[in-house]
């Protein structure tokens, strides 16, 4: 609780004390003046600022706000000689307001925790000197040092030192990760144990943390349908209630001659119940809690509207490469004829050692140090086909089937993506390469099915065989292969037309941006994803973990449920008490109590959305 809140709590306590004293003195029969003065004291203690704000509001020709309503109600009560009620009204109102402000602050703290991850300084080593500068001033390639306990200022690669890093802001994982020379570290993470020297790989504005901060700051412009409904509702509701209250106060006066005070009291009660505060606060709070819960898991949701749409989705469409798979080639199978596998790999790698082709690189990596033992000469790269080189005394040709056909070498063919190797004009074997499916993919898809996702679909530009294999492995319902980027959008539109619920698309590449935009909810893989994808997407998964997708959907459904519960609860109780007020079934204090009670219940309910599972 902050200072202001503590002061209000004190005032409430004093006022309650005085009120109780007044009640007691009244009961034991002391002169009315005493209890009345005590009431006055209690009233002023708890209500002075409400009345002042009401006057201020009137002076500035403002809308009729809660302060005015409460003031009218309580002053009205005073005129009706209901002193206890007058104090009770103000008391309950302030208690309700205090509670609201406390709850809102608590929710704010959880989102502010995200803003606190911003590193303020970086320790850069320039020309032998160590300087402390702001992270924005450090350029790619510079060297920075981070001591134990400090926040890492920029994305980079460790060139000296070992430590463990806490990246919970990014991944939601509170288990620190051990890192050493060659490992990547992220800006915003906390260096737990030892000093590390890091070579900066990206300027601050492009680091993951900068992107996350930007995303969280702009996310609130996107409002959910529930929130927009509340805003429209409140706009019509308040004047309608005030007018009705006036009618209640005035009209019966013409027909009923006695007990005029009663109708005025009922009008005041009506006014008091009219406060839509519970509704107006609890709905945004619920969504806010949901977004906070998602952020804590490393899922950045760009707005309440997104959360709402996500809760209604029944189809999830995946891009294959880079999303379901790691996006990196690895050696799968080595087939050899009369030669040792390791030797074949080494020979092939030696021939490809200078090529930049991703397949070449992965073969070289697989061979580790072996290939370096061979002397390589006369390397000729034939684009689109392969490489011919002299390895030691052998003439080695490595490449695709077209190269083998051209050199007139008979091979044992395979329909997988492979590099064929011929040594001295004779087929020696082939090495198949492929992309690896992410380990968590199967689990993620299984969880999606648990959440009642109707259909999962995979889109890819890759070949039919590869696509089919992966679709079967992961139990994906439908897949489309050999797609050009334009095709993907078309297919997505068909899927959207055919599905009842909303459609989610998960992707990572630059060419996924149009599809991300067209889908109802676009989810991008945050760290390997391209900037274009991350900017276009509605949800960014900071650590690329596919299992976060079902988690995001679960949070979305829960949050929307809570928001709807609150709307129904608040509206029905309000209407009930409004009716009761008209028929005199409740007094003003009772009305305020109900108002506060509902506010408290809906706010507590909204806070449930902050807990993610």
């Amino acid at each position, binding site marked *: 609780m902050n200072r*202001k809140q503590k002061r209000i709590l004190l005032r409430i306590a004093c006022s309650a004390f005085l009120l109780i004293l007044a009640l007691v003195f009244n009961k034991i029969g002391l002169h009315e003046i005493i209890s009345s003065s005590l009431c006055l004291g209690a009233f002023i203690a708890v209500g002075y600022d409400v009345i002042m*704000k009401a006057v*201020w509001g009137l002076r*500035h020709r*403002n*809308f009729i*706000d*809660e302060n005015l309503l409460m003031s009218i109600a309580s002053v009205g009560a005073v005129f009706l000689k209901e002193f206890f009620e007058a104090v009770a009204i103000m008391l309950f109102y302030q208690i309700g*307001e205090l509670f*609201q*402000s406390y709850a*809102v602050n608590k*929710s*704010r703290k959880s*989102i502010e925790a995200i803003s606190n991850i911003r590193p303020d300084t970086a320790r850069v080593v320039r020309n032998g000197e160590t300087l402390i500068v702001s992270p924005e001033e450090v350029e790619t390639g510079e060297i920075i040092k981070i001591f134990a306990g400090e926040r890492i200022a920029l994305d980079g690669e460790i060139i000296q030192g070992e430590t463990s890093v806490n990246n919970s802001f990014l991944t939601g994982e509170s288990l620190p990760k051990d890192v050493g020379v060659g490992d990547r570290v992220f800006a915003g993470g906390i260096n737990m144990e030892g000093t590390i020297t890091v070579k900066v790989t990206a300027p601050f504005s492009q680091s993951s943390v900068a992107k996350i901060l930007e995303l969280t*700051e702009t996310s*609130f*412009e996107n409002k959910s349908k529930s929130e927009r409904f509340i*805003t429209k509702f*409140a706009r019509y509701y308040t004047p309608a209630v005030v007018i009705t209250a006036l009618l209640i106060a005035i009209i019966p006066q013409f027909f009923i001659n006695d007990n005029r005070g009663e109708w005025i009291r009922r009008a005041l009660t009506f006014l008091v119940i009219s406060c*839509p*505060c519970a509704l*107006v*606060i609890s709905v*945004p*709070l619920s969504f*806010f809690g949901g977004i906070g819960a998602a952020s804590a898991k490393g899922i950045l949701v760009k707005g309440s509207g997104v959360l709402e749409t996500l809760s209604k989705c029944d189809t999830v469409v995946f891009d294959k490469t880079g999303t379901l798979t790691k996006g990196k080639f690895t050696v799968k199978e080595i087939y050899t004829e009369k030669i040792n596998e390791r030797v074949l790999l080494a020979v092939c790698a030696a021939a490809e050692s200078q090529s930049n082709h991703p397949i070449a690189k992965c073969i070289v990596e697989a061979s580790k140090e072996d290939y370096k033992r061979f002397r390589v000469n006369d390397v000729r790269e034939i684009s689109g086909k392969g490489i011919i080189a002299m390895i030691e005394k052998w003439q080695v040709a490595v490449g695709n089937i077209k190269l083998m056909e051209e050199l007139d070498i008979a091979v044992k063919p395979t329909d997988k993506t492979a590099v064929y190797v011929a040594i001295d004009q004779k087929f020696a074997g082939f090495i198949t390469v492929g992309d690896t499916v992410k380990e968590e993919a199967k689990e993620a898809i299984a969880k999606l099915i648990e959440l009642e996702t109707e259909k999962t679909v995979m889109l890819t530009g890759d070949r039919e065989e590869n696509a089919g294999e992966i679709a079967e492995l992961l139990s994906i319902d439908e897949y489309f292969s050999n797609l050009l980027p334009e095709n993907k959008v078309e297919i997505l539109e068909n899927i959207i037309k055919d599905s009842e619920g909303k459609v989610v698309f998960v992707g990572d590449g630059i060419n996924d941006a149009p599809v991300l935009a067209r889908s109802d909810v676009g989810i991008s893989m945050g760290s390997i994803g391209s900037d274009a994808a991350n900017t276009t997407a509605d949800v960014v998964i900071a650590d690329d973990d596919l299992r976060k997708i079902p988690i995001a959907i679960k949070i979305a459904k829960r949050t929307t449920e809570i928001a709807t519960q609150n709307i129904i609860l608040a509206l029905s109780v309000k209407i009930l008490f409004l009716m009761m007020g008209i028929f005199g079934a409740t007094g003003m204090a009772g009305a305020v109590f109900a108002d506060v009670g509902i506010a408290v219940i809906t706010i507590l309910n909204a806070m449930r959305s902050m807990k993610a599972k």
Partner: protein
Amino acid sequence: MKKTFKINDLDCAHCAAKMEEKIKALEGVANANVNFIAQKLTIEAADEIFDEVVKKAALICKEVEPDCTVVF
């Protein structure tokens, strides 16, 4: 130009909505957003009149909720 300011002591969600409406209605404002929960005010307006618009916006905030202050 589009800039975001922090608002202190913004305690009433209804007020935030009212502020947003009034600031949006100011002449020269392309867009405005008051985020009650993050306590942030974002204003988008033409460069030349930006400072003026911001001052008027701060006044509006004070009128609607006297307790709150915009941090520059």
